[in-house]
């Protein structure tokens, strides 16, 4: 099936080339980081995780959100998702790969990464995270690829696949839960130490992932003959709406506990992020951009007439995606480190090399996504875009 | 398996390629670079012996250093009792390099020859020596 990725229009190749250039730039900066050390980033003794780990966290959510199309389709036989399911599964694959790459570029001694396997440490959440991410990648490759190749041959997918599909549905929430456990069990990190964190992660993931999927579906429909279906896109819109509301609701819960209790340590990070603490306020503008985007998105999503307009839905999806990206792919991690264990403040902002490497990893993800989507779309075009029953 | 045959052939080629350097040199006699043992510390020794016999040190020093490392850092043991009963402080920097203070003519000779680059010296301080 891979061969279909090598036949494409001019736009396709231009896009691939563009991604390759971004990857190349990122790679050059990574070499620099590899030689000099993580000192090329904006991280510090106090804010010891930054952009990379934030992206990782955000992308685990994107990966997990594939379940939002897989589950209704396979478990509830929701036919409208028949065509879009493969897009969901194929979104999860590059998302997990990006997660792994972001962990890798964050390591101080990347060549020793295998130590995690050589000295398996069962008390470290990182170990489980590696296991669940690896498993999830495997499941999605297996399910997506087998389903698509049987479809191409015009036969029903093999029976055993059902087992792995169900497994992947159960597995999806686990990857984001375990990722939340990386943070929510650390003593003294009050911003993260909340039982709600995993739930918050899942809610925001199930909003940001499907919003990206809506955009991708619209792009696919515009550039190819493959139509994921208007009903599917609208259904995704509803999913985004409900989970965005849940996400905001959870944030409200957290704000209540943190502020009503009056315990200073629980509110410091929040104040730092949204208002600034003792003249330190580098993150305040972007956090407010996130808030404004959230409000716009909710207005567009909650009013059904607006949501039904595909252009407005697309705008709402962009807003949701970036609002949550800022919130989780930036504020969440940095906020946890401010103030530090001595109640002092060191601010963080990513450097140029750090941003280029980050972009490079995203470009790798998009390249894989492009290739996978190209394959899926070509095969759908080949078999005439018919609705196939699994 | 879809395309099963091709995958297996591909794997075979891969294995062939990746083991080529080993298979190629297998059974050949490789001249070993001459190592210098003329440091002041070694010259002072009446009985010129390393921690373990020369042959063992030649082939196994890296294994030994690895186990020393774990013993010292992880198990808190400090002294090594050699086969002939003498004891040594298990320390690359303070024991090995005290005698072999000529890292360039000793360690590096072989390591360069077999193209390995141990990262010991990123942390462990090499002895001072003139170039």
């Amino acid at each position: 099936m891979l061969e279909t990725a090598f036949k494409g229009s001019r736009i396709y190749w231009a896009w691939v080339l563009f991604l390759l250039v971004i990857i190349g730039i990122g790679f050059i900066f990574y070499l620099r980081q590899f030689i000099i050390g993580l000192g090329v980033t904006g991280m510090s003794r106090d804010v010891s995780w930054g952009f990379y780990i934030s992206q990782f966290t955000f992308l685990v959510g994107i990966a997990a959100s594939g379940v939002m199309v897989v589950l209704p389709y396979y478990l509830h036989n929701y036919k409208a998702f028949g065509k879009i399911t493969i897009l969901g599964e194929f979104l999860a694959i590059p998302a997990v790969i990006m997660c792994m790459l972001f962990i890798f570029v964050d390591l101080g001694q990347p060549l020793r990464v295998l130590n995690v396997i050589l000295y398996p440490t069962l008390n470290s959440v990182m170990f489980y995270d590696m296991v669940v991410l690896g498993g999830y990648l495997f499941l999605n490759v297996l399910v997506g690829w087998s389903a698509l190749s049987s479809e191409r041959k015009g036969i029903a997918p093999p029976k055993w696949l059902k087992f792995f599909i169900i497994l992947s549905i159960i597995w999806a929430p686990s990857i984001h839960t375990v990722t939340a456990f990386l943070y929510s069990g650390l003593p003294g990190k009050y911003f993260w130490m909340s039982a709600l964190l995993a739930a918050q992660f899942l809610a925001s993931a199930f909003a940001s992932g499907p919003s990206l999927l809506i955009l991708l579906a619209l792009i696919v429909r515009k550039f190819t003959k493959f139509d994921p279906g208007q009903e599917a896109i609208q259904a995704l819109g509803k999913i985004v709406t409900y989970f965005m509301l849940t996400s905001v609701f959870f944030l409200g819960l957290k704000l209540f506990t943190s502020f009503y209790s009056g315990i200073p340590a629980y509110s410091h990070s929040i104040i730092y992020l949204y208002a600034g603490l003792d003249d330190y306020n580098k993150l305040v503008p972007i956090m407010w951009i996130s808030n404004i985007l959230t409000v716009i998105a909710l207005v567009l999503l909650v009013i059904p007439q607006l949501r039904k307009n595909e252009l407005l839905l697309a705008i709402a999806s962009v807003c949701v995606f970036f609002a949550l990206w800022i919130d989780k792919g930036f504020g969440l991690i940095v906020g946890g480190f401010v103030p530090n264990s001595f109640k002092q403040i060191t601010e963080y902002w990513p450097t140029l090399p750090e941003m280029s490497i980050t972009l490079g990893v995203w470009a790798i993800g998009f390249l894989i996504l492009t290739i996978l989507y190209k394959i899926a779309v070509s095969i759908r075009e080949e078999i005439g875009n018919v609705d196939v029953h699994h | 398996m879809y395309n099963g045959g091709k995958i297996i052939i591909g794997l075979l080629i891969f294995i062939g390629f990746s083991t080529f350097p080993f298979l190629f040199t297998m059974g050949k006699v490789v001249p070993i670079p001459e190592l210098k043992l003329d440091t002041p510390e070694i010259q002072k020794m009446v009985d010129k012996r390393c921690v373990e016999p020369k042959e063992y040190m030649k082939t196994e020093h890296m294994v030994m250093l690895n186990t020393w490392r774990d013993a010292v850092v992880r198990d808190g043991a400090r002294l090594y009792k050699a086969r002939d009963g003498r004891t040594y402080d298990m320390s690359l920097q303070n024991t090995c390099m005290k005698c072999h203070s000529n890292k360039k003519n000793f360690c590096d000779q072989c390591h360069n020859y077999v193209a390995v680059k141990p990262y010991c010296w990123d942390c462990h301080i090499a002895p001072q020596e003139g170039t």
Partner: protein
Amino acid sequence: MGINRRDFLKIAGISTLASIGGAAGLTLIKSGAIEAAQYIDDPRALKAKRWGIAIDINKFKTPEDYKRVMNACHTIHNVPEINNPKEEIKWIWTESYEHSFSSQEYANPYIQDHLKKKPFLVLCNHCDNPPCVRVCPTKATYKRESDGIVMMDMHRCIGCRFCMAGCPYGARSFNWRDPRPFIKKLNPEFPTRMKGVVEKCTLCYEKLAIGLKPACVEASNGGMYFGDLSDPNSDIRKVLASHYSIRRKAELGTTPCVFYIIGGQ
């Protein structure tokens, strides 16, 4: 214990397999015939079930008193002096009362002036229940079961910095770049670190092993007590039993083993 060359070769073979087989193989070498019986402890080594340090803050009077202690540690351990606070590396340093004991400070802003203004030495607490050890994915930081020291194996650390996020005391530093150029005078008997690994106080395990007390304790002129917390007759237990002392963030359940003696008899 005689081992001939053939046995050595066998072990070499096993170790080659081990690099493929991973952890299981490594334990094989460790318990393998050559090594196991051949490690012996230095008879001079100081031993305890649970080391602890008590810092008598009343004995630290001048800035010199602090400096002497910090320098003693940092010079023998080749701790680099990086003047950029973002990349700083410190094993033992000072912080104000407010910053070191944040929970106490909330409780009582009217505390005696001499406490409020006094610098406090801070270092790794060698916690009995250390979160840094709990989170490390490679056991690069681990607790020595024999004496409770929380150790760092810089050979194994992958630089994920999970431990830095896990330690609630800010005791850990990361090598954001090669530290060597920032070390003024190398101590040729102790290694440096390389870029990309985490480091912290290791309670001078290398000095304990040859029967010496930690460098900071030695340099403190009696301002710091060092001893076995599990032994009721040790100096440290006696001084703790007779003086009022506090620990940093004990409410987190990490059971820090560094004590600050605040009051007199």
